[in-house]
């Protein structure tokens, strides 16, 4: 589309506010810190110094709502009780692939206590056929066992469950496939009768649209840089490995769920969501009502990890039942439904080849990847191969393989734990072949300046120094090993980030944003920013979030929340403080320019006015409140490197007889721009390490090959690490200033260890035993088989 020249000129004029030039700290204190020049809008607040020179920001301030959560007083979605509320229960498909002939709800409708029945006409989450005419059925085709078909609303949860069991679904079953290797066979049953695509969510996930589809293979999606054939010709050494990772489910403590209250003028939805604005948009779109008629509230939520974007089937169905019955409806999934129908991390099956010169210079990276996102897409895992190292050439092919299983959704660093598992083990293989230390090879192949510092910290650590470079050197059945791996993530900015700051005449302060706190602690950080600006303790700031009545906040996915929203909050707080000083200056007998707000006091440069407390100064306001709303401005110019990450080191003990891998210690060195609250940042990294170890050693969604049903849809046989599997985790936060915004924060959710810990553990297992395990989860069965295959099993 070509724009008229005049329109361009107008846009350019409007988009060119006054600029100023500032000096900002950039780099890592103690290593590379220097001042750099940035051109920023004139309205931006003064540049903050590095954390050690701030009072509240950058300090490990106590979690704003920690006491409420610890005491059980934080109200989660399942705690919401509205007058006359009904309880809803899904009816789910019991077969993995079928056309639905009929759904008979008559017995359920007559069941005592039942107030409403809803039969699903549009199922959400599954990939959609490019040509919908290929599925001319009255009801959505069943693509996986567990797909929601209908729902019952009743006066008690028991009545809803019992009535749901009375719904009779008549299936015309079709052949199915749940094994992602078999699904690639040209003769395998097709999950879709034609090409199909899945939309991604705000947290990533979803796959490329419009790529070729052959049978169940949706792809390849090809990414090239340079000439990889030539790259391998130029190589002195080539290593190749075949890596397989399993499907992991999000398994957040709180399941998906909503309470929907449909009133003629306003649909109010309490949702466990990572994006209040996304839920609102999806509901308004689905029911064709204005955004203003939908309000979404998320006071607290118990984890999402990427699976909780949009209203989804639970949101839409609860709203439909509320509309039908005229009563509020609560629909919370049970654990089985949580495993089956609301997302997972896709599997991967990767063949990765790397070529290098004798000195470790990478000449080529070549990746062919398959993976299944069930009846969705988004199994691409080439991110690390594409972005962690600077090889002379690159060729990646990513393929989604459809199977009859629940659709994947974004999951914490989509594709990256899988991709790094292969890439970082192959790099270790390469180091062995080049007779180089793995950390030296990374110094050669990785030019990122912050990871260079992080590797330096690793080199100087007692843990890394204790590593025996000879693999499998320990005698006896239990062998100790140490390995490292690196992670990469990206600086994504959500421009839909807004906040409002209000100063009241009694000196109290409020900050508002529609943003939801998914557990990472944005409330606390918002309070810290106002505390820094106004010099009052964070606990005295009123933080109001998780409500679409407030200015729209970012959706929490892709590590965008802190990075995107904190500059907005700071800008609003700064501008409000400037308005405030201008407003009270006449009453103090001076001008705004003479006043500053420092340490909770209003002071005068000229000394004309004796310092007075902020609270007393507020009483001089000429209005009852001063309110400023701010929006996200683009990152400052020039842009710095747009990726960040970390280096993780794992120490393991491998019991070569019992097949157990014990992760004993982890050293996790990570950067995330300016850490706004180190205690919360470290907490996220601890969580990432734990979730990553759980993925590497245990978690596995198991589908029976003959019946297409998940056999472990609980938290008993779907195994997650417990307290005894959690190692001692030593997190070293690296302050890495970029000079990109008024807070200069980055995100941490994705890069936080979950990307790299699997490969670090695998590399440690190799260091311990001399045997490389290229398959997750590394259960005793897998470990013993790998040791046996290489003749390394003891005794």
């Amino acid at each position, binding site marked *: 589309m070509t724009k008229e020249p005049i329109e361009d000129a107008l846009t350019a004029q409007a988009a060119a506010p006054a600029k100023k030039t500032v000096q900002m700290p950039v780099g890592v204190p103690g290593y590379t810190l220097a001042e750099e020049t940035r051109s920023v809008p004139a309205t931006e607040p003064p540049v903050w110094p590095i954390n050690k020179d701030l009072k509240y920001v950058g300090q490990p301030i106590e979690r704003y709502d920690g006491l409420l959560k610890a005491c059980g007083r934080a109200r989660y979605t399942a705690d919401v009780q509205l007058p006359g509320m009904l309880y809803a229960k899904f009816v789910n498909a*019991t077969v993995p692939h079928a056309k639905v002939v009929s759904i008979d709800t008559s017995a359920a409708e007559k069941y005592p206590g039942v107030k409403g029945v809803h039969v699903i006409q549009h199922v959400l989450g599954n990939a959609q056929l490019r040509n919908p005419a290929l599925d001319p059925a009255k009801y959505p085709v069943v693509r996986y066992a567990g797909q929601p078909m209908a729902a019952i609303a009743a006066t008690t949860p028991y009545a809803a469950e019992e009535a749901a069991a009375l719904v009779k679904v008549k299936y015309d079953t079709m052949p199915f496939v749940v094994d992602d290797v078999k699904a690639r066979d040209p003769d395998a049953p097709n999950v879709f009768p034609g090409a199909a695509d899945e939309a991604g969510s705000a947290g990533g996930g979803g796959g490329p649209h419009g790529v070729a589809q052959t049978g169940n293979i949706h792809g390849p999606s090809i990414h090239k840089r340079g000439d990889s054939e030539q790259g391998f010709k130029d190589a002195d050494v080539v290593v190749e490995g075949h890596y397989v990772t399993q499907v992991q489910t999000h398994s957040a403590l709180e399941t998906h769920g909503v309470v929907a209250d449909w009133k003629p003028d306003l649909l109010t939805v309490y949702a466990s969501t990572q994006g209040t604005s996304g839920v609102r948009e999806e509901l308004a779109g689905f029911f064709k009502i204005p955004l203003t008629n939908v309000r979404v509230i998320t006071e607290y939520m118990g984890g999402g990890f990427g699976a909780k974007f949009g209203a989804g089937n639970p949101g839409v169905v609860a709203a439909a039942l509320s509309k039908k019955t005229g009563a509020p409806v609560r629909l919370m999934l049970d654990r089985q439904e949580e495993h089956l129908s609301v997302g997972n991390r896709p599997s991967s099956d990767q063949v990765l080849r790397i070529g290098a010169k004798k000195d470790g210079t990478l000449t080529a990276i070549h990746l062919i990847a398959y993976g299944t996102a069930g009846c969705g897409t988004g199994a691409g895992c080439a991110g690390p191969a594409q972005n962690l190292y600077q090889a002379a050439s690159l060729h990646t092919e990513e393929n989604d393989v459809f199977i009859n299983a629940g659709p994947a959704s974004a999951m914490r660093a989509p594709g990256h734990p899988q991709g790094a598992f292969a890439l970082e083990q192959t790099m270790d293989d390469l180091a062995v072949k080049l007779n180089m230390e793995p950390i030296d090879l990374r110094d050669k192949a990785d030019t990122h300046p912050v990871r260079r510092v992080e590797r330096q910290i690793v080199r100087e650590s007692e843990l890394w120094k204790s590593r025996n470079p000879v693999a499998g050197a320990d005698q006896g059945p239990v062998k100790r090993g140490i390995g490292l791996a690196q992670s990469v993530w990206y600086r994504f900015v959500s421009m839909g980030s807004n906040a409002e700051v209000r100063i009241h005449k009694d000196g109290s302060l409020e900050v508002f944003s529609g943003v939801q706190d998914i557990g990472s602690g944005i409330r606390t950080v918002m309070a810290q920013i106002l505390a820094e600006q106004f010099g009052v303790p964070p606990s005295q700031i009123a933080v109001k979030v998780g409500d679409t009545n407030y200015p729209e906040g970012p959706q929490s996915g892709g590590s965008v929340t802190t990075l995107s929203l904190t500059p907005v909050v700071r800008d609003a707080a700064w501008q409000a403080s400037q308005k405030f000083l201008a407003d009270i200056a006449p009453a103090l007998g001076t001008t705004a320019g003479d006043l500053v707000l420092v340490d909770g006091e209003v002071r005068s440069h000229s000394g004309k006015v004796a310092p007075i407390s902020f609270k007393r100064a507020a009483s001089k306001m000429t209005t009852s409140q001063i309110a400023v709303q701010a929006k996200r401005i683009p990152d400052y110019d020039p842009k710095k490197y747009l990726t960040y990450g970390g280096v993780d080191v794992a120490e393991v003990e491998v019991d070569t*007889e*019992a097949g*157990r891998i014990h992760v004993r210690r982890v050293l996790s060195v990570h950067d995330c721009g300016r850490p706004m609250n180190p205690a919360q940042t470290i907490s996220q990294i601890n969580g990432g390490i734990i979730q990553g170890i759980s993925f590497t050693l245990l978690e596995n969604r198991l589908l029976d090959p003959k019946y297409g049903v998940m056999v472990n849809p609980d938290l008993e*046989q779907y195994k997650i690490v*417990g307290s005894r599997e959690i190692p001692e985790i030593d997190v070293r936060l690296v302050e890495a200033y970029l000079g990109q915004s008024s807070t200069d924060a980055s995100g941490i959710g994705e890069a936080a260890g979950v990307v790299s810990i699997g490969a670090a553990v695998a590399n440690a297992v190799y260091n311990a035993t001399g045997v490389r395990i290229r398959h997750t989860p590394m259960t*005793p069965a897998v470990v013993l088989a790998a040791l046996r295959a290489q003749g390394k099993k003891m005794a």
Partner: protein
Amino acid sequence: MNSFSIADCTTVDAALSQLKDDAVVKAGGVDLLDRMKDGIEQPTRLVNIRNVAELRGIRETDQGMTLGPLTTLAEISDYAHIREHYQILADACGHAATPHIRNMATVGGNLLQRVQCWYYRSADFQCFRHGKDLCFAFEGLNQYHAIMEYGTCPSVAPSSAAVALLGLGATVELTSAKRGKRTLGIRELYIVPDANPTKFTVIEPDELITAILVPKPAPGTRSAYQKYGEKESFDWAIADAGVVLEMEGDICKRAVITMGAASPVVRRSAQAEAALAGKPINEETARAAGKLAVEGATPLSMNAYKLDLFPVAVYRTVLLAAGKMNRDPSAAG
């Protein structure tokens, strides 16, 4: 879960009088409520014996020890006399499940919990053990299943307490209002699937376990139990071993080796026991016993690793019992 009525009883007589019309006994409720929530059992009447005080507690007697069936696993593993003289039982009860489950679960209930098999425990699959005519595990996912003595059903015995009590030669007293009392050995309590697939134990619907009798160990007895899972926190055994050694100086006069996660019913390994009888306990004899413990095993498509794991569980537990090895970090707890 279906709706049901529940009768609360505080005496054995009251409980026995309630055992009619398909009533199901609820003690700690740990396994029963799981089965009801999973939709594989729909009892309409429960008899709650949780508050029958006379069935709870540990009594030391001249012959040994009497355990009330409602004694919790935590009470057993914390009991000083048991820790001192019946290490195998303290280990088994102290490493089952999790601390919070051990505080609720009773030893009687632990003995009577149903087998572990995800097909048996799913309402989506109706197998032999539910009175149908097929097993899904042979051709399905069977990594946690049995490697020996399974016949038509390769589920595994779930009770850690049974592995210990079998090793100790314990007996179980059953009481019926009509027929009075009878006493059975631990092994005789269970019915192998081939004999009757839907009836897991010989206990009749009108019977209660009223006591578990543990004989006094012979002088020189040492014992231990270890459970191996895929993780240490809250996992089922993929291999386990109970070991009781009657020592005379350095020589093992008599050994009892028991296993749970190898077969649908808890078993003793006569071959492993024979390998130790009359011999000193050292790494060589312990490993020989471990190897023999899986003699004759016929693993399924996905569980051959248990042939490696059980010998390890047995040899390390033999050495632990003999005081020649520390508790294994790869075993639970």
